């Protein structure tokens, strides 16, 4: 069961994602790269049509000029499908649509990304810091954050 998704699922994925998304495979996952504008639509389709009902993990990576946002999706309890959705947003903009209306579990995880990485999410119900104090300035997981001894 550690194998990646079956050909049938990848075929279905291509139909769902259309030509807007790029699909990449490695030994562990199937990656779908999508632009921020198509993120919400794709997530809704994955949930409705492919049964990806469980957002396991979401996080951000500081890639210099851009932030990469990574979403790990599963279908549970049968767990036959695993997908990674990736999207990139420029450092200057650093804003994405919130997916918490589709996956409620994204609520706190998006707050964490905002808190530590400084990527904000539009139409999030309550986008405030979750781990750091409210009066903290800066976002520590950015590579240009200066650590104090």
């Amino acid at each position, binding site marked *: *069961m*550690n194998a990646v998704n079956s050909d049938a699922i990848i075929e279905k994925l291509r139909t769902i994602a259309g030509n807007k998304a790029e699909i990449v495979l490695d030994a*562990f*996952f199937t990656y779908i790269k999508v632009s921020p504008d198509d993120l919400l639509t794709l997530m809704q389709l994955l949930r409705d049509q492919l049964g990806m*009902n*469980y*957002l*396991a*993990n979401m*996080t951000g*990576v*500081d890639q210099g000029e851009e932030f990469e946002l*990574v979403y*790990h999706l599963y279908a*549970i*309890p*049968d*767990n036959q499908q695993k997908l*990674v959705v990736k999207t990139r947003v420029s450092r200057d903009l650093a804003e994405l649509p919130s997916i918490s209306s589709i*996956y*409620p*579990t994204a*609520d*706190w*995880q998006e707050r*964490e990304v905002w808190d*530590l990485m400084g990527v904000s999410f539009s139409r999030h119900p309550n986008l405030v*810091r*979750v*781990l*750091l*104090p409210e009066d903290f300035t800066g976002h*520590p*997981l950015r590579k240009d*954050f200066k*650590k104090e001894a």
Partner: protein
Amino acid sequence: MFTTDLYTINIGPQHPSTHGGLHVEALMDGEVVKDAIVHLGYVHRSVEKIAESRTYTQFIPYASRLDYLASNLPTLGYAQAVEKLMGLSVPERAEYIRIIMAELSRIASHMLFIGSLAVDLGATTGLVYCLRDRERIMNMLEMTSGQRLIASYMRFGGVSADLPEEFFPAVQSFLNDLPGMIDEYNGLITGNEILQARCRGIGILSPEDAIDYGVTGPNLRASGIAYDLRRADPYGVYGRFKFEIPTGQRGDCLDRLTVRIKEIEQSGSIIRQALETMPDGEIQAKAPKVLKPAKGKEVYHRIESAKGELGYYLVSDGTDKPFRLHVRAPSFVNLMVLPLISRGGKLQDIIANIATLDPVLGESDR
């Protein structure tokens, strides 16, 4: 119509029932909870940032300190994530030792859960029995790793030391006494009328909400969904062992307690099977002293920890330090349903809800 003013009651951050620095702001309408706002971060150490300035090996003790109540589980997950990234394989004997130690940690965590639930609900005696039995596991951890609580026992490609001679009689007698311990917990704690009254029908979490909010582990199984990563996405050699996945029916606090008691039995059975079939041989694969995974590789590895799905997302950049390490902490995600299951209940129910969601703050705050 008469209306009452809402007032706020702060539970924590310094309160024994919050299991560490957790702050819950309860908005009360008379005796009824209107909302519960969770404030986290009191023990935030920014381990994800620390990881970027440490080598892969140096992070093992930090991983141990995530879930300090079951420290072999977070280190197991981290070691396996790095092994996946590097393509390292693990000797058979080490795989079995890992599972034995991981399941012992799970039992220790669940025992503390049972005891702390009892003490949170006012039954101080319950804690004593659970700690007495958990102490035997702590002794076994000390035998194998030299550390009672925060055993940084896992290494990339194996474990730090083979099981010592005196470990085997200790674990055998522990397994033989385990059914008696469980009977005692059931008689003293689960069967207690006051505990039943405080837990039955309290904090009900529906299976749909559980999945939507990403709840995993015993909390998800208590809501009736038989989802366990040891079965659904086996890692290590878990695929070779027979065990049941206990589930609840109502998803209330009592189910979250009984599911964990049954899981202790199943973990005991896994340890027994592992001890019977454990092969001889190496405990450590040949791994380079300094690990340098190739540039631009990434991996997400998840294990079934005592609290739920513990995931590590690692990105490498060709150096000996991770470019990015993200910990998907089950306690963090599980705590998100606390307001949902507490609304409409009484203030005392929040205490039972926190205790049965079983957060460990070292992991949720990171």
